[in-house]
């Protein structure tokens, strides 16, 4: 499987979980424009969980067609990886515990919010 992972220097590594191919491509593009490296994008929980590298941040779609991304959020929490939700759902539709307190970037992806979320990464020790 071909991947567009290109981690260079101190660029933060962002995991993208999004089942819609075009949207995944757009997020990829937006992250590239923001000098971030992309892990994935992964269209499903299974494919997201097999990524071995630890990302610095993750952008998760909630609805992945036939499943929800909550198990990925759970795994990220366990590994201490912050994440944001890129979803068409409002908060009342993403009520799983795993999603608690995660910022919403909206859908279509709100670039301002994405920039804001990434700005906070600079403070990270491993950022």
């Amino acid at each position, binding site marked *: 499987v071909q991947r567009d992972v290109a981690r260079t220097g101190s660029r933060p590594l962002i995991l993208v979980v999004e089942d819609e191919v075009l949207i995944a*491509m*757009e997020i990829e593009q937006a992250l590239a424009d923001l000098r971030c490296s992309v892990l994935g994008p992964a269209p499903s929980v299974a494919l997201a969980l097999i990524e071995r590298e630890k990302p610095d941040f993750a952008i998760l779609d909630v609805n992945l*067609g036939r499943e929800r991304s909550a198990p990925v959020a759970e795994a990220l929490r366990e590994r201490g990886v912050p994440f944001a939700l890129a979803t068409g759902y409002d908060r009342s539709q993403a009520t799983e515990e795993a999603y608690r307190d995660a910022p919403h970037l909206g859908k279509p992806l709100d670039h301002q919010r994405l920039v804001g979320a990434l700005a906070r990464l600079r403070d990270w020790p491993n950022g």
Partner: protein
Amino acid sequence: MFAADQDDGGFAAAILATMRQPLLVLNGDLRVETANRAFFRTFEIGEAETTGRLVYELGNGQWDIPELRELLEEVLPSNGTVEGFKVEHEFDGIGRRVMVLNAHRMERTDRPDTILLAIDDITEQEQATALLEGERVYVGKIVDSARDALLILDFDLRVKSANETFYTKFRVDPEDTKGRMVYELGNGQWDIPQLRDLLENVLPDDDAFDNYEVQHDFAELGHRTMVLNARRVDHMQLILLAIEDQTEERRAGRALRESEARLSALMRHAPVGIGLIDRDGRWVMQNPPLECLASGPGSSGDRAGRWCPGDPETWPGARALRREVVTPGEDVRAEIDGAERWLRVSAAPVDGGKDDVEHAVVIVEDVTEARQAEEERELLLGELNHRVRNLFGIIRALVSQHGDGPEIEAYKKTLTGRLDALARAHSLATESRWRSIDLATLAANTLEPYATGRAGAVKIEGEPLPLEARRALSLSLSLHELATNSVKYGALSAPEGKMRLTWRILRDESGSRAELAWDEIGGPAVRPPERRGFGTKLIERVFEYELQGEAEMDFRPEGLCVRAWFPIS
């Protein structure tokens, strides 16, 4: 009659002996000449103490009865014959006796006068009469106190008496009743053919009739339903006629029956389960639909069972018994005939006018389909919302891609082409109600704009292959990219160029997969692109990402050749 014994004393003696009526024959001095056996037996006196004795001395002077003295000494001498002279006397041995005396004095020329004294002992008849009188009084009292209207008729069907109930109920005046023929009562209103038949035909044959229903329209009282009972009392020569006015009862009964019939029809034909429970929560009544619904486990069809959908303490029926009106009801899950169903249970107390609620009405409605439809609607709405947002995302993604050239016009053209392809695929998805789209339909729909006016330039071939709407949408974008690429650089850019899309389904033990082939020929010589543009990336990604398969693009000089596969379920 005694003329005969003047000639034949033996014959007279024989007559005397056989007569059952006590008889004394006295001489002019009122001494007993002879007495018959009936006399001795009746008055318990011996023959020896009788014959030759003065009549007053008989039975130790017991026959010294003032009335007898009066008869023999005063009435008879002047009249010769006395009949029906009634005498009552208390005898020592035989008690009080009532006698009717007939006396006849026979004057004789050859010997002293003879007096024939016939004594009719009517004591028993008198007693019977008294008894009868007593009975009459007794019956009269019963008649008066009876709550049913009673008429006492004699055998000529004349009214001897009627009770108060009769007068009030049938608004008849006592004056116009007694002594009248029953048919004449109330100005002839009682001349009822059925009554005539009963009194004149039935009663003479049988000594009673029971519960005869008679309908009659009275001028003042209106229509009446009466139940007649009669007894013939032969020893009193009376007919007792009891008239029970059943009009109100019948009317009430009819109203009740009608109301029951209406209720029963309602219960039977209502498309929902309706039942009644008692205070213990037991079913006392269930309509057929409820019997079907309540035939689940726990009830085993037992009408007196305790089957209730949900918790026995808090289900709507239990709450209704605590005076609560539970509408529109609660939805509870129940297993019916092995299938899980949703039941909407409403209940209300039945106000029986008492302090405690004795019954509650329970309505059970199978709302499984409605709930499923509701859930489906919710799901569809959510899905639609999701799709719309996704669509915005896709459009945004398309717009954000840089055009292949620096010119705005080229960008615009590429973008609108992509949006059009997306819109067309979307229409197909909507037409299929977001179920599945056949690949042939999808391909024709996507590639059609490039085939117009170029007969045979585009060929689409493959067996039926249904695709999930969402996957079809993405695939259509890939096909669109391939087609636009062909129009710009490939086969479709040359007048003689042709393209072909074919596919087949391969099945093996691990499942089925579709193999697609896109082949172009007759176009200008192909060179691999210097950099991978959005189109190429999209084609690869769709197969890899959306279809979980793979696509390989081979830029052969004679024409682009794409081989792709993806698993199908």
